[in-house]
């Protein structure tokens, strides 16, 4: 958007399909719909049968081939599937080394800019994608203390979700600070797009009416300013000459090879595919940093069962309330627990209050449960009784902790030596395991999820760990699927420990830039997309020479 508006001749390559018609129109058409099976069938994600990835919890562990952090691969990217929660990162995220200090084994670093510097870009993105929320209702501590606001959001909050309200009340009862989360979902008509009509197929689905627009907003502006979009076009190599990127090679979906030249090249394919392309292209990497410090948030799930009523979580915005308390390294007891674990500090993360699953997922849950409970006949009338009682859907209210993940050099993306995609191109291999900080923080905060759900009146409350580790055998062998993917091409000033500079410029290629979550030096403890967009906007403003 920034480059196209500044008069650059911009071409955008997207490997996936375009499920929209005329993105420059006020109200583009789309084929996204309220269809659980369609999304289950990887409609907008890479289908692992054609485009697998490889995961291993450690270099010694046997590799697993399949779907790994398979974020949408389609025009609109990750903001097609998101439910558009748009918190800001905190001051301590940008200056983590200075404000919180080092942690042994992790590459704790400052970002090349601070909260005050990125704040105006947050404002611009919130305006552009249409964030709804009431900042005067955000808690002074810890939320506004760490991410101060200077102005109102462009829209008021939409209707609160009933189940979110219940859990928020529970949080208040145990001294936590719930609030309606900012989210980029229209609460009224906004820039030609309609208000959300509460259809309930939100998280995990493309919005059928574009009440939730996400990254399509700047894309639409770019196209209106003359940029060209080529979907179903996979870039397979960045061409270089000395310190210059000269252009790229790409394949159409019939596997015909084409080339394109350019004055600058920008990679924005998310941590995994951006790194894969950098490695496929053999970009200079003298210090072996590309792909390292890969970070996933860990999602620990609480589930509360309410037996006296149905919570009708199939309506509305997935969930509407958050708490930020567990993202605070000074949350009561956290410093002490960290010290016991041999750490100077740790953080959990924000908790999303509310949400449940749809019937296909619910039914599959019972299919699994019945193997345990009724192995002699794990089907039949028992299955249907469970579906009607709906203990794991209509009577369930979830809460999800989005935990901070530290940058470790050993967590990385590289190319798998043997597995190829359907075109015959090496796929990304992800080597990832949690460190002592993640394991200790999860152990500390898991009981809190049960506590706040009980306080909300849940008849039964459980918390399920997400991180695979020997401490949590229930999660062993689980392929990470949290879909918050960061790091791999970290920004920094030292080319020995980072891949890009403050503008996302590659340390060894003067006109190659990276503008996605891979440039994050730390993962924060909140949903990353708003920060990805604000960082990219700040970077692009610099490239266009109009800062």
């Amino acid at each position, binding site marked *: 958007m920034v480059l196209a508006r500044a008069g650059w001749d911009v071409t955008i390559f997207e490997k996936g399909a375009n499920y929209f018609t005329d993105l420059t129109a006020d109200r583009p058409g789309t084929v996204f719909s309220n269809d659980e099976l369609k999304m289950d069938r990887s409609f907008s994600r890479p289908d692992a049968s054609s485009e697998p990835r490889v995961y291993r919890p450690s270099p010694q562990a046997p590799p697993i081939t399949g779907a790994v952090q398979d974020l949408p691969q389609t025009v609109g990217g990750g903001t097609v599937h998101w439910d558009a929660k748009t918190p800001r990162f905190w001051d301590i995220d940008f200056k983590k080394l200075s404000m919180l200090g080092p942690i042994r084994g992790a590459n704790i670093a400052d970002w090349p800019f601070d909260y005050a510097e990125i704040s105006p870009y947050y404002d611009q993105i919130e305006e552009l994608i249409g964030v709804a929320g009431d900042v005067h209702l955000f808690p002074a501590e810890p939320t506004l203390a760490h991410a101060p606001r200077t102005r109102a959001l462009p829209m008021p909050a939409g209707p609160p979700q*009933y189940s979110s309200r219940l859990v928020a009340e529970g949080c208040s009862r145990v001294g936590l600070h719930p609030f309606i989360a900012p989210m980029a979902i229209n609460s009224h008509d906004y820039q030609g797009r309609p208000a959300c009509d509460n259809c309930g197929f939100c998280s995990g689905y493309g919005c059928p009416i574009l009440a939730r627009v996400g990254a399509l907003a700047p894309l639409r502006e770019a196209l209106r300013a003359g940029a060209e979009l080529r979907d179903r076009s996979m870039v397979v190599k960045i061409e270089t000459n000395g310190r210059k990127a000269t252009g790229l090679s790409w394949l159409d979906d019939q596997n015909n090879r084409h080339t394109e030249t350019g004055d600058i090249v920008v990679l924005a394919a998310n941590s995994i595919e951006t790194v894969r392309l950098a490695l496929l292209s053999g970009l200079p990497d003298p210090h072996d940093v590309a792909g390292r410090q890969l970070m996933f948030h860990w999602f620990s799930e609480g589930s509360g069962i309410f037996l006296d009523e149905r919570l009708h979580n199939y309506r509305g915005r997935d969930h509407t309330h958050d708490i930020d308390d567990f993202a605070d390294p000074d949350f009561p007891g956290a410093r002490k627990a960290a010290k016991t674990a041999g750490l100077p500090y740790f953080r959990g993360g924000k908790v999303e209050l509310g949400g449940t699953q749809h019937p296909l997922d619910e039914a599959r849950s019972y299919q699994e449960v019945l193997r345990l409970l009724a192995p002699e006949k794990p089907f039949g009338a028992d299955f249907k009784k*469970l579906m009607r009682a709906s203990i794991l859907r209509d009577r369930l209210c979830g809460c999800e902790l989005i935990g901070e993940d530290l940058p470790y050099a050993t967590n990385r993306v590289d190319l798998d030596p043997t597995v190829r995609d359907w075109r015959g191109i090496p796929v990304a291999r992800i080597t990832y395991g949690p460190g002592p900080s993640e394991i200790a923080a999860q152990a500390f905060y898991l009981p809190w999820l049960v506590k706040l759900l009980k306080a909300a009146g849940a008849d039964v409350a459980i918390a399920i760990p997400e991180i695979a580790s020997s401490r949590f055998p229930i999660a062993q062998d689980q392929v990470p699927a949290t879909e918050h993917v960061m790091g791999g091409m970290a920004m920094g000033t030292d080319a020995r420990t980072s891949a890009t500079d403050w503008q996302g410029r590659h340390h060894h290629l003067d006109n190659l830039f990276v503008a996605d979550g891979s440039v994050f030096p730390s993962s924060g403890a909140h949903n990353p997309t708003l920060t990805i967009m604000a960082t990219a906007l700040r970077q692009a403003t610099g490239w266009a020479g109009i800062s």
Partner: protein
Amino acid sequence: MTVVPRRRVLKTVGLAGLAAILPAELLAACSSIAMPSHGTSPDTSFLVFDAHQAKVLEEATARLIPGPEDDPSEAGHPGAREANVTRYIDTMLGALRLSSPKIFAGGPFSARTGSHVDDMATFLQLTPAQANAWTQRLATLRSQYIRGVKALDEMAGGDFTKVTADERDAILAQDPGGFMTLLFGHAIEGMYAVPEYGGNTGLVGWSDIHFPGDRQPRGFTDAQVSFSDGPDVYVPNGIGQQLLKLLASSP
């Protein structure tokens, strides 16, 4: 349980109804499909199954997700048979033989909640990456189904449809080659997915669980989102109590 007459009626009506709505391309595709038969004439009402295979699958899925005629405790509660789960599975396995493969239903709306047009009835073309994946996947699944039906028949001494309901349950519970697990997963989809994929006929899957299904473009009112619908107390039943006990005992 003796439900043969009822089944026969359903089956006849079902097949006649299906033939009436089959598009020409689908009928053309049917004639060119070569699948092993059990000595009976091929049943052209299905895309990939012969009549016997379809019957075995209908009876097997009716044990997995029983309806009123399959289990006395399910009186008033339609199951896989009523939802047409077998047709759903057949449609999926034969999806690529249609000019618009029935893999991804269109959008944004069905005609159920406020739209005059059922966009979901128009299926979407696949990208080459998707077509590659589904070609492999469906070839594997088709052979799993052929083997699976054969295994059920063999374990029933020749014909799965000829043994008692209890015997069918016992055979399925052994999960031969993982086929029961596979079939159950697909039966779930045929029961609760949008009906455009061939199952959930008459929305019986959704109505049995009080799920409204797709809601665009009507949506819900803000009040429906934000406030309780009032008490709806869970009525304890054996398996529900076991599940709650299991959850309560989680670490």
